[in-house]
Protein backbone atom coordinates (compact mmCIF):
# COMPACT_ATOMS: atom_id res chain seq x y z
CA UNK A 1 0.00 0.00 0.00
CA UNK A 2 2.77 2.42 0.92
CA UNK A 3 0.37 5.16 2.06
CA UNK A 4 0.96 6.90 5.41
CA UNK A 5 -1.29 5.98 8.35
CA UNK A 6 -3.04 8.82 10.11
CA UNK A 7 -4.30 6.63 12.90
CA UNK A 8 -3.75 3.07 13.85
CA UNK A 9 -5.10 0.77 16.53
CA UNK A 10 -2.92 -1.97 17.96
CA UNK A 11 -4.58 -4.91 19.63
CA UNK A 12 -7.45 -2.72 20.83
CA UNK A 13 -10.03 -4.23 23.19
CA UNK A 14 -12.98 -2.48 24.81
CA UNK A 15 -14.74 -4.01 27.81
CA UNK A 16 -18.16 -3.24 29.22
CA UNK A 17 -17.56 -4.43 32.76
CA UNK A 18 -16.24 -7.94 32.13
CA UNK A 19 -17.83 -8.36 28.71
CA UNK A 20 -15.59 -7.53 25.79
CA UNK A 21 -17.35 -5.40 23.17
CA UNK A 22 -14.30 -5.23 20.94
CA UNK A 23 -11.49 -7.80 21.00
CA UNK A 24 -7.94 -7.27 19.81
CA UNK A 25 -8.53 -5.09 16.78
CA UNK A 26 -5.51 -3.81 14.85
CA UNK A 27 -6.64 -1.46 12.11
CA UNK A 28 -4.70 1.07 10.04
CA UNK A 29 -6.46 4.31 9.10
CA UNK A 30 -4.99 5.82 5.98
CA UNK A 31 -4.42 9.55 5.71
CA UNK A 32 -7.11 11.40 3.75
CA UNK A 33 -8.98 8.28 2.80
CA UNK A 34 -12.40 7.03 3.77
CA UNK A 35 -12.33 3.89 5.91
CA UNK A 36 -15.69 2.14 6.33
CA UNK A 37 -16.54 -0.17 9.24
CA UNK A 38 -19.24 -2.68 8.36
CA UNK A 39 -20.83 -5.59 10.14
CA UNK A 40 -24.12 -6.74 11.65
CA UNK A 41 -25.76 -4.98 14.63
CA UNK A 42 -23.91 -5.47 17.89
CA UNK A 43 -20.63 -6.43 16.23
CA UNK A 44 -18.71 -3.68 18.04
CA UNK A 45 -18.12 -1.23 15.22
CA UNK A 46 -19.63 1.75 17.03
CA UNK A 47 -17.85 0.78 20.25
CA UNK A 48 -14.61 0.64 18.28
CA UNK A 49 -15.25 4.01 16.62
CA UNK A 50 -15.97 5.72 19.94
CA UNK A 51 -12.68 4.49 21.38
CA UNK A 52 -10.75 6.38 18.67
CA UNK A 53 -11.44 9.80 20.23
CA UNK A 54 -11.89 8.65 23.83
CA UNK A 55 -15.67 9.09 23.91
CA UNK A 56 -15.86 6.16 26.32
CA UNK A 57 -14.02 8.10 29.00
CA UNK A 58 -17.18 9.36 30.66
CA UNK A 59 -19.13 6.12 30.50
CA UNK A 60 -18.72 4.30 33.80
CA UNK A 61 -17.62 0.68 33.54
CA UNK A 62 -16.05 0.92 30.10
CA UNK A 63 -12.37 -0.05 29.87
CA UNK A 64 -10.10 0.31 26.87
CA UNK A 65 -6.98 -1.83 26.39
CA UNK A 66 -4.37 -1.70 23.67
CA UNK A 67 -3.16 1.32 21.78
CA UNK A 68 -4.75 3.96 19.56
CA UNK A 69 -2.07 5.87 17.70
CA UNK A 70 -2.68 9.31 16.22
CA UNK A 71 0.35 10.39 14.18
CA UNK A 72 2.31 7.73 16.02
CA UNK A 73 1.36 8.79 19.54
CA UNK A 74 -0.97 6.83 21.82
CA UNK A 75 -4.06 8.87 22.65
CA UNK A 76 -4.53 6.79 25.82
CA UNK A 77 -1.00 7.46 27.08
CA UNK A 78 -0.80 9.03 30.54
CA UNK A 79 -0.82 12.82 30.40
CA UNK A 80 -2.74 13.02 27.13
CA UNK A 81 -5.73 15.36 27.48
CA UNK A 82 -8.86 13.79 25.94
CA UNK A 83 -10.12 17.29 25.13
CA UNK A 84 -7.11 17.83 22.88
CA UNK A 85 -7.62 14.42 21.25
CA UNK A 86 -11.25 15.26 20.49
CA UNK A 87 -10.30 18.58 18.93
CA UNK A 88 -8.13 16.69 16.46
CA UNK A 89 -10.50 13.75 16.03
CA UNK A 90 -14.07 15.00 15.57
CA UNK A 91 -17.26 12.98 15.59
CA UNK A 92 -20.66 13.00 13.92
CA UNK A 93 -23.39 10.91 15.51
CA UNK A 94 -26.15 8.74 14.18
CA UNK A 95 -28.84 11.22 15.11
CA UNK A 96 -28.43 14.93 14.37
CA UNK A 97 -27.58 16.84 17.54
CA UNK A 98 -28.20 20.56 16.98
CA UNK A 99 -27.67 22.57 20.15
CA UNK A 100 -31.30 23.43 20.92
CA UNK A 101 -30.80 26.91 22.35
CA UNK A 102 -28.60 28.15 19.51
CA UNK A 103 -29.08 29.57 16.02
CA UNK A 104 -27.65 27.91 12.90
CA UNK A 105 -24.66 30.23 12.97
CA UNK A 106 -24.02 29.76 16.70
CA UNK A 107 -24.21 26.00 16.22
CA UNK A 108 -21.58 25.96 13.50
CA UNK A 109 -19.10 28.12 15.40
CA UNK A 110 -19.86 26.65 18.85
CA UNK A 111 -16.60 24.70 18.93
CA UNK A 112 -14.65 27.89 18.28
CA UNK A 113 -16.65 30.42 20.25
CA UNK A 114 -16.88 28.32 23.37
CA UNK A 115 -13.12 28.01 23.61
CA UNK A 116 -12.71 31.76 23.41
CA UNK A 117 -12.56 32.78 19.73
CA UNK A 118 -14.26 36.21 19.75
CA UNK A 119 -13.14 37.69 16.41
CA UNK A 120 -16.45 38.06 14.55
CA UNK A 121 -14.81 38.22 11.17
CA UNK A 122 -12.98 34.98 11.78
CA UNK A 123 -16.13 33.29 13.11
CA UNK A 124 -18.15 34.39 10.07
CA UNK A 125 -15.47 33.05 7.75
CA UNK A 126 -15.23 29.76 9.59
CA UNK A 127 -19.02 29.37 9.53
CA UNK A 128 -19.25 29.95 5.78
CA UNK A 129 -16.33 27.65 5.05
CA UNK A 130 -17.76 24.83 7.20
CA UNK A 131 -21.29 25.23 5.85
CA UNK A 132 -19.99 25.16 2.26
CA UNK A 133 -17.96 22.02 2.98
CA UNK A 134 -21.10 20.41 4.43
CA UNK A 135 -23.11 21.46 1.34
CA UNK A 136 -25.54 23.43 3.49
CA UNK A 137 -24.48 27.02 2.79
CA UNK A 138 -26.89 27.72 -0.07
CA UNK A 139 -29.86 26.46 1.93
CA UNK A 140 -29.22 28.44 5.10
CA UNK A 141 -27.19 31.51 4.12
CA UNK A 142 -30.26 33.77 4.34
CA UNK A 143 -31.34 32.55 7.77
CA UNK A 144 -28.11 31.97 9.66
CA UNK A 145 -29.62 33.43 12.80
CA UNK A 146 -32.77 31.31 12.78
CA UNK A 147 -33.00 28.53 15.42
CA UNK A 148 -31.17 25.38 14.33
CA UNK A 149 -34.01 23.13 15.47
CA UNK A 150 -36.16 24.56 12.64
CA UNK A 151 -34.08 22.73 10.02
CA UNK A 152 -35.13 19.41 8.49
CA UNK A 153 -33.51 16.20 9.69
CA UNK A 154 -31.13 16.02 6.73
CA UNK A 155 -30.17 19.66 7.14
CA UNK A 156 -29.63 19.16 10.87
CA UNK A 157 -27.26 16.29 10.15
CA UNK A 158 -25.30 18.38 7.65
CA UNK A 159 -25.27 21.14 10.29
CA UNK A 160 -23.76 18.64 12.75
CA UNK A 161 -21.13 17.82 10.15
CA UNK A 162 -20.44 21.52 9.52
CA UNK A 163 -20.09 22.06 13.27
CA UNK A 164 -17.59 19.23 13.51
CA UNK A 165 -15.64 20.58 10.51
CA UNK A 166 -15.53 24.17 11.80
CA UNK A 167 -12.90 23.26 14.40
CA UNK A 168 -10.78 21.81 11.55
CA UNK A 169 -10.27 18.27 12.84
CA UNK A 170 -7.66 16.07 11.21
CA UNK A 171 -9.84 12.98 11.47
CA UNK A 172 -13.65 12.81 11.32
CA UNK A 173 -15.46 9.83 12.84
CA UNK A 174 -18.98 9.25 11.53
CA UNK A 175 -21.34 6.86 13.30
CA UNK A 176 -24.00 5.83 10.77
CA UNK A 177 -24.47 9.46 9.74
CA UNK A 178 -27.20 8.72 7.19
CA UNK A 179 -29.21 6.01 8.92
CA UNK A 180 -31.95 8.45 9.99
CA UNK A 181 -32.08 10.29 6.67
CA UNK A 182 -34.06 10.07 3.44
CA UNK A 183 -32.32 9.05 0.17
CA UNK A 184 -31.80 12.63 -1.05
CA UNK A 185 -30.12 13.77 2.16
CA UNK A 186 -28.10 10.55 2.16
CA UNK A 187 -26.94 11.30 -1.36
CA UNK A 188 -25.92 14.83 -0.32
CA UNK A 189 -23.82 13.49 2.54
CA UNK A 190 -22.21 10.77 0.45
CA UNK A 191 -21.24 13.36 -2.20
CA UNK A 192 -19.79 15.44 0.59
CA UNK A 193 -17.42 12.67 1.71
CA UNK A 194 -15.77 12.64 -1.71
CA UNK A 195 -14.85 16.32 -1.29
CA UNK A 196 -14.03 16.11 2.38
CA UNK A 197 -11.38 13.45 2.03
CA UNK A 198 -9.16 15.89 0.16
CA UNK A 199 -8.44 17.47 3.53
CA UNK A 200 -9.82 15.19 6.26
CA UNK A 201 -9.31 11.55 7.16
CA UNK A 202 -12.67 9.85 7.56
CA UNK A 203 -13.82 6.74 9.41
CA UNK A 204 -17.46 5.87 8.83
CA UNK A 205 -19.59 3.21 10.46
CA UNK A 206 -22.40 2.05 8.22
CA UNK A 207 -25.07 -0.60 8.20
CA UNK A 208 -25.45 -0.18 4.52
CA UNK A 209 -23.01 -2.22 2.46
CA UNK A 210 -23.81 -0.38 -0.74
CA UNK A 211 -22.90 2.82 1.03
CA UNK A 212 -19.58 1.42 2.17
CA UNK A 213 -18.86 0.26 -1.37
CA UNK A 214 -19.77 3.67 -2.81
CA UNK A 215 -17.91 5.99 -0.46
CA UNK A 216 -14.95 4.20 1.04
CA UNK A 217 -11.40 3.43 -0.01
CA UNK A 218 -10.84 0.84 2.68
CA UNK A 219 -13.29 -1.39 4.46
CA UNK A 220 -13.07 -3.33 7.72
CA UNK A 221 -15.57 -6.11 8.40
CA UNK A 222 -16.46 -6.65 12.07
CA UNK A 223 -18.19 -9.67 13.57
CA UNK A 224 -18.82 -10.45 17.25
CA UNK A 225 -16.37 -7.83 18.44
CA UNK A 226 -13.53 -8.95 16.21
CA UNK A 227 -12.23 -7.56 12.97
CA UNK A 228 -12.58 -10.39 10.48
CA UNK A 229 -11.07 -8.74 7.47
CA UNK A 230 -9.59 -5.43 6.35
CA UNK A 231 -8.58 -4.32 2.88
CA UNK A 232 -9.12 -1.95 -0.02
CA UNK A 233 -12.87 -1.67 -0.49
CA UNK A 234 -12.91 -2.93 -4.07
CA UNK A 235 -10.88 -5.99 -3.25
CA UNK A 236 -12.87 -6.77 -0.10
CA UNK A 237 -16.19 -6.60 -1.90
CA UNK A 238 -15.12 -8.45 -5.08
CA UNK A 239 -12.73 -10.98 -3.65
CA UNK A 240 -13.12 -11.45 0.11
CA UNK A 241 -10.54 -13.70 1.73
CA UNK A 242 -12.60 -14.86 4.68
CA UNK A 243 -15.70 -16.99 4.09
CA UNK A 244 -17.55 -15.03 6.81
CA UNK A 245 -16.94 -11.77 4.94
CA UNK A 246 -18.22 -13.34 1.78
CA UNK A 247 -21.30 -14.65 3.57
CA UNK A 248 -22.05 -11.19 4.95
CA UNK A 249 -21.53 -9.17 1.79
CA UNK A 250 -23.54 -11.61 -0.29
CA UNK A 251 -26.37 -11.22 2.19
CA UNK A 252 -26.39 -14.70 3.64
CA UNK A 253 -26.62 -13.32 7.19
CA UNK A 254 -26.76 -10.08 9.13
Amino acid at each position, binding site marked *: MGEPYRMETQNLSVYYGRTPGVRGVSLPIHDRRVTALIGPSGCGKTTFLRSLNRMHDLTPGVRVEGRVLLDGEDVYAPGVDPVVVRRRVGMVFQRPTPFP*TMSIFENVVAGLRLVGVRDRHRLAEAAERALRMAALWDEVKDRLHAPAVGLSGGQQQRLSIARALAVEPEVLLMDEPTSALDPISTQAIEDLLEDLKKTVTIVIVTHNMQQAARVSDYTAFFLNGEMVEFGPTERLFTNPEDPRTEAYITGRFG
Partner: protein
Amino acid sequence: MNANLRRRYLRDWLMQGLVFLGTAVVLVPLLFILYYVLVQGIGALSPAFFTRPPAPPGEGGGGMLPAIVGSLVVDSLALVLAAVFGIAAGVLLAEYPDHPLNPLLRLVVDVMAGLPAILMGLVAFVVVVKPLGHFSGLSGAVALALLMIPIVTRATEGVLKLIPWELTEAGLALGLPRWRVILSLVLPAARGGILTGLMLALARGAGEAAPLLFTAFGNPYLTFNPLEPMDTLPLKLYVYAISPYEDWHRQAWGAALLLAAAIMAASFLARRTLRR
Protein backbone atom coordinates in the same frame (compact mmCIF):
# COMPACT_ATOMS: atom_id res chain seq x y z
CA MET B 1 -73.94 -3.63 22.44
CA ASN B 2 -73.17 -6.65 24.59
CA ALA B 3 -73.21 -6.58 28.37
CA ASN B 4 -69.44 -6.73 28.71
CA LEU B 5 -68.86 -3.66 26.55
CA ARG B 6 -71.60 -1.75 28.35
CA ARG B 7 -69.95 -2.55 31.67
CA ARG B 8 -66.63 -1.21 30.40
CA TYR B 9 -68.23 2.00 29.19
CA LEU B 10 -69.88 2.39 32.56
CA ARG B 11 -66.57 1.90 34.34
CA ASP B 12 -64.85 4.42 32.03
CA TRP B 13 -67.57 6.96 32.73
CA LEU B 14 -67.30 6.34 36.47
CA MET B 15 -63.51 6.73 36.49
CA GLN B 16 -63.65 9.94 34.49
CA GLY B 17 -66.14 11.28 36.99
CA LEU B 18 -63.80 10.42 39.87
CA VAL B 19 -60.88 12.18 38.15
CA PHE B 20 -62.96 15.33 37.65
CA LEU B 21 -64.19 15.15 41.22
CA GLY B 22 -60.63 14.84 42.56
CA THR B 23 -59.49 17.81 40.47
CA ALA B 24 -62.38 19.88 41.78
CA VAL B 25 -61.60 18.96 45.39
CA VAL B 26 -58.08 20.33 44.87
CA LEU B 27 -59.06 23.42 42.89
CA VAL B 28 -62.04 24.65 44.89
CA PRO B 29 -60.16 25.50 48.12
CA LEU B 30 -57.42 27.19 46.09
CA LEU B 31 -59.88 29.36 44.20
CA PHE B 32 -61.72 30.05 47.40
CA ILE B 33 -58.54 31.29 49.11
CA LEU B 34 -57.65 33.55 46.19
CA TYR B 35 -61.20 34.88 46.02
CA TYR B 36 -61.39 35.54 49.76
CA VAL B 37 -57.99 37.28 49.88
CA LEU B 38 -59.03 39.41 46.91
CA VAL B 39 -62.35 40.44 48.44
CA GLN B 40 -60.89 41.16 51.88
CA GLY B 41 -57.69 42.80 50.67
CA ILE B 42 -58.74 44.93 47.73
CA GLY B 43 -60.18 47.65 49.99
CA ALA B 44 -56.82 48.21 51.70
CA LEU B 45 -54.93 48.89 48.47
CA SER B 46 -54.99 52.68 48.39
CA PRO B 47 -52.14 54.87 47.04
CA ALA B 48 -51.05 55.41 50.64
CA PHE B 49 -50.69 51.64 51.09
CA PHE B 50 -47.84 51.66 48.55
CA THR B 51 -46.21 55.00 49.39
CA ARG B 52 -46.49 55.61 53.15
CA PRO B 53 -44.79 54.15 56.20
CA PRO B 54 -47.09 52.45 58.71
CA ALA B 55 -49.31 54.55 60.99
CA PRO B 56 -50.05 53.84 64.67
CA PRO B 57 -53.26 51.89 65.31
CA GLY B 58 -56.49 53.86 65.24
CA GLU B 59 -55.03 56.75 63.26
CA GLY B 60 -55.96 55.25 59.91
CA GLY B 61 -53.96 55.89 56.75
CA GLY B 62 -50.41 54.70 56.80
CA GLY B 63 -48.98 52.12 54.43
CA MET B 64 -46.63 49.27 53.73
CA LEU B 65 -43.77 51.03 51.96
CA PRO B 66 -40.97 49.79 54.29
CA ALA B 67 -42.33 46.24 54.12
CA ILE B 68 -42.70 46.34 50.31
CA VAL B 69 -39.14 47.61 49.85
CA GLY B 70 -37.88 45.18 52.50
CA SER B 71 -39.56 42.22 50.80
CA LEU B 72 -38.05 43.20 47.44
CA VAL B 73 -34.55 43.52 48.91
CA VAL B 74 -34.62 40.44 51.16
CA ASP B 75 -36.31 38.18 48.58
CA SER B 76 -33.97 39.28 45.77
CA LEU B 77 -30.92 38.61 47.91
CA ALA B 78 -32.34 35.26 48.98
CA LEU B 79 -33.11 34.33 45.37
CA VAL B 80 -29.57 35.13 44.24
CA LEU B 81 -28.05 33.12 47.11
CA ALA B 82 -30.40 30.19 46.52
CA ALA B 83 -29.75 30.27 42.75
CA VAL B 84 -25.96 30.25 43.12
CA PHE B 85 -25.73 27.47 45.71
CA GLY B 86 -28.85 25.55 44.67
CA ILE B 87 -27.96 25.32 40.98
CA ALA B 88 -24.33 24.46 41.78
CA ALA B 89 -25.45 21.61 44.04
CA GLY B 90 -27.96 20.40 41.44
CA VAL B 91 -25.26 20.35 38.76
CA LEU B 92 -22.93 18.36 40.99
CA LEU B 93 -25.63 15.78 41.79
CA ALA B 94 -26.84 15.38 38.21
CA GLU B 95 -23.69 15.77 36.11
CA TYR B 96 -21.11 14.15 38.38
CA PRO B 97 -23.08 11.27 39.90
CA ASP B 98 -19.91 9.52 41.10
CA HIS B 99 -18.46 12.53 42.89
CA PRO B 100 -17.33 11.56 46.43
CA LEU B 101 -19.13 14.57 47.95
CA ASN B 102 -22.51 13.53 46.58
CA PRO B 103 -23.80 11.13 49.28
CA LEU B 104 -23.18 13.80 51.93
CA LEU B 105 -24.62 16.56 49.73
CA ARG B 106 -27.76 14.53 49.05
CA LEU B 107 -28.21 13.85 52.75
CA VAL B 108 -27.81 17.53 53.62
CA VAL B 109 -30.28 18.61 50.91
CA ASP B 110 -32.84 16.03 52.02
CA VAL B 111 -32.52 17.02 55.67
CA MET B 112 -32.70 20.73 54.84
CA ALA B 113 -35.86 20.15 52.81
CA GLY B 114 -37.48 18.56 55.84
CA LEU B 115 -36.51 21.11 58.48
CA PRO B 116 -39.12 23.52 59.86
CA ALA B 117 -38.67 27.01 58.44
CA ILE B 118 -38.15 28.60 61.82
CA LEU B 119 -34.96 26.56 62.32
CA MET B 120 -33.49 28.25 59.24
CA GLY B 121 -34.01 31.53 61.07
CA LEU B 122 -32.16 30.07 64.03
CA VAL B 123 -29.22 29.05 61.82
CA ALA B 124 -29.08 32.50 60.22
CA PHE B 125 -29.27 34.05 63.69
CA VAL B 126 -26.21 32.09 64.79
CA VAL B 127 -24.12 32.55 61.64
CA VAL B 128 -25.08 36.12 60.64
CA VAL B 129 -26.89 38.02 63.40
CA LYS B 130 -24.54 37.04 66.23
CA PRO B 131 -21.29 37.88 64.40
CA LEU B 132 -22.71 41.18 63.10
CA GLY B 133 -24.17 42.01 66.49
CA HIS B 134 -27.56 43.16 65.18
CA PHE B 135 -30.60 42.10 63.15
CA SER B 136 -30.43 42.70 59.40
CA GLY B 137 -32.19 42.15 56.09
CA LEU B 138 -29.15 40.17 55.01
CA SER B 139 -29.55 37.62 57.81
CA GLY B 140 -33.20 37.27 56.77
CA ALA B 141 -32.10 36.63 53.19
CA VAL B 142 -29.69 33.94 54.41
CA ALA B 143 -32.50 32.25 56.38
CA LEU B 144 -34.81 32.30 53.36
CA ALA B 145 -32.02 31.09 51.04
CA LEU B 146 -31.43 28.07 53.31
CA LEU B 147 -35.11 27.28 52.92
CA MET B 148 -35.02 27.74 49.14
CA ILE B 149 -31.77 25.91 48.29
CA PRO B 150 -33.19 22.35 48.53
CA ILE B 151 -36.06 23.30 46.21
CA VAL B 152 -33.68 24.78 43.63
CA THR B 153 -31.27 21.87 43.95
CA ARG B 154 -33.94 19.22 43.45
CA ALA B 155 -35.48 21.06 40.50
CA THR B 156 -32.07 21.55 38.87
CA GLU B 157 -31.01 17.95 39.39
CA GLY B 158 -34.33 16.67 38.06
CA VAL B 159 -34.36 18.73 34.90
CA LEU B 160 -30.65 18.17 34.14
CA LYS B 161 -31.25 14.43 34.23
CA LEU B 162 -33.88 14.88 31.52
CA ILE B 163 -31.44 16.53 29.12
CA PRO B 164 -30.35 13.88 26.61
CA TRP B 165 -26.81 12.57 27.10
CA GLU B 166 -26.30 13.01 23.35
CA LEU B 167 -26.12 16.77 23.89
CA THR B 168 -23.17 16.35 26.26
CA GLU B 169 -21.49 13.92 23.88
CA ALA B 170 -21.94 16.28 20.93
CA GLY B 171 -20.24 19.02 22.94
CA LEU B 172 -17.39 16.77 24.06
CA ALA B 173 -16.86 15.57 20.48
CA LEU B 174 -16.15 19.19 19.50
CA GLY B 175 -13.21 19.18 21.89
CA LEU B 176 -14.96 21.20 24.57
CA PRO B 177 -14.03 20.59 28.20
CA ARG B 178 -16.73 19.13 30.42
CA TRP B 179 -17.35 22.30 32.46
CA ARG B 180 -17.84 24.28 29.27
CA VAL B 181 -20.34 21.73 27.95
CA ILE B 182 -22.35 21.98 31.18
CA LEU B 183 -22.22 25.77 31.35
CA SER B 184 -22.90 26.62 27.71
CA LEU B 185 -24.90 23.67 26.38
CA VAL B 186 -26.59 21.67 29.14
CA LEU B 187 -27.66 24.46 31.51
CA PRO B 188 -29.14 26.64 28.73
CA ALA B 189 -31.09 23.63 27.47
CA ALA B 190 -32.44 23.12 31.00
CA ARG B 191 -33.16 26.79 31.75
CA GLY B 192 -36.96 26.40 31.64
CA GLY B 193 -37.03 23.79 34.39
CA ILE B 194 -34.43 25.59 36.47
CA LEU B 195 -36.42 28.80 36.22
CA THR B 196 -39.56 26.96 37.36
CA GLY B 197 -37.59 25.69 40.36
CA LEU B 198 -36.39 29.19 41.18
CA MET B 199 -39.95 30.52 40.99
CA LEU B 200 -41.24 27.75 43.26
CA ALA B 201 -38.45 28.53 45.71
CA LEU B 202 -39.20 32.25 45.55
CA ALA B 203 -42.88 31.62 46.19
CA ARG B 204 -41.96 29.49 49.18
CA GLY B 205 -39.43 31.95 50.61
CA ALA B 206 -41.33 35.17 49.92
CA GLY B 207 -44.30 33.97 51.96
CA GLU B 208 -42.34 33.04 55.09
CA ALA B 209 -42.53 35.09 58.29
CA ALA B 210 -41.15 32.62 60.84
CA PRO B 211 -37.48 32.56 59.71
CA LEU B 212 -37.47 36.36 59.69
CA LEU B 213 -38.69 36.91 63.25
CA PHE B 214 -35.22 37.02 64.74
CA THR B 215 -33.21 37.81 61.60
CA ALA B 216 -34.75 40.58 59.46
CA PHE B 217 -36.74 41.40 62.62
CA GLY B 218 -38.93 44.14 61.17
CA ASN B 219 -38.50 47.89 60.97
CA PRO B 220 -41.18 50.60 60.83
CA TYR B 221 -38.87 52.98 58.99
CA LEU B 222 -38.01 52.84 55.32
CA THR B 223 -34.53 51.50 54.58
CA PHE B 224 -32.78 50.16 51.49
CA ASN B 225 -29.75 48.93 53.43
CA PRO B 226 -29.77 45.13 53.92
CA LEU B 227 -27.36 45.50 56.84
CA GLU B 228 -30.11 47.16 58.87
CA PRO B 229 -33.21 45.45 60.27
CA MET B 230 -35.88 45.27 57.58
CA ASP B 231 -39.60 44.75 57.40
CA THR B 232 -41.19 42.37 54.91
CA LEU B 233 -44.77 41.76 53.90
CA PRO B 234 -45.17 38.39 55.70
CA LEU B 235 -43.68 39.87 58.89
CA LYS B 236 -46.06 42.82 58.70
CA LEU B 237 -48.91 40.48 57.92
CA TYR B 238 -48.13 38.39 60.98
CA VAL B 239 -47.76 41.34 63.34
CA TYR B 240 -50.90 43.07 62.05
CA ALA B 241 -53.00 39.92 61.96
CA ILE B 242 -52.43 39.08 65.63
CA SER B 243 -53.01 42.67 66.71
CA PRO B 244 -56.39 43.67 68.17
CA TYR B 245 -56.88 46.62 65.80
CA GLU B 246 -59.49 46.62 63.05
CA ASP B 247 -57.54 48.90 60.64
CA TRP B 248 -54.38 46.78 61.06
CA HIS B 249 -56.40 43.69 60.17
CA ARG B 250 -57.52 45.40 56.98
CA GLN B 251 -53.90 46.25 56.16
CA ALA B 252 -52.88 42.65 56.82
CA TRP B 253 -55.41 41.47 54.21
CA GLY B 254 -53.96 44.02 51.81
CA ALA B 255 -50.47 42.66 52.42
CA ALA B 256 -51.71 39.11 51.79
CA LEU B 257 -53.28 40.15 48.50
CA LEU B 258 -50.17 42.05 47.39
CA LEU B 259 -47.95 39.08 48.25
CA ALA B 260 -50.09 36.62 46.30
CA ALA B 261 -50.34 38.95 43.30
CA ALA B 262 -46.62 39.71 43.26
CA ILE B 263 -45.59 36.06 43.32
CA MET B 264 -48.03 35.15 40.58
CA ALA B 265 -46.86 38.10 38.48
CA ALA B 266 -43.17 37.19 38.97
CA SER B 267 -43.84 33.61 37.92
CA PHE B 268 -45.85 34.71 34.89
CA LEU B 269 -43.24 37.25 33.75
CA ALA B 270 -40.37 34.78 34.16
CA ARG B 271 -42.13 32.25 31.97
CA ARG B 272 -42.94 34.82 29.33
CA THR B 273 -39.39 36.13 29.15
CA LEU B 274 -38.17 32.59 28.69
CA ARG B 275 -40.49 31.89 25.80
CA ARG B 276 -38.98 34.73 23.76
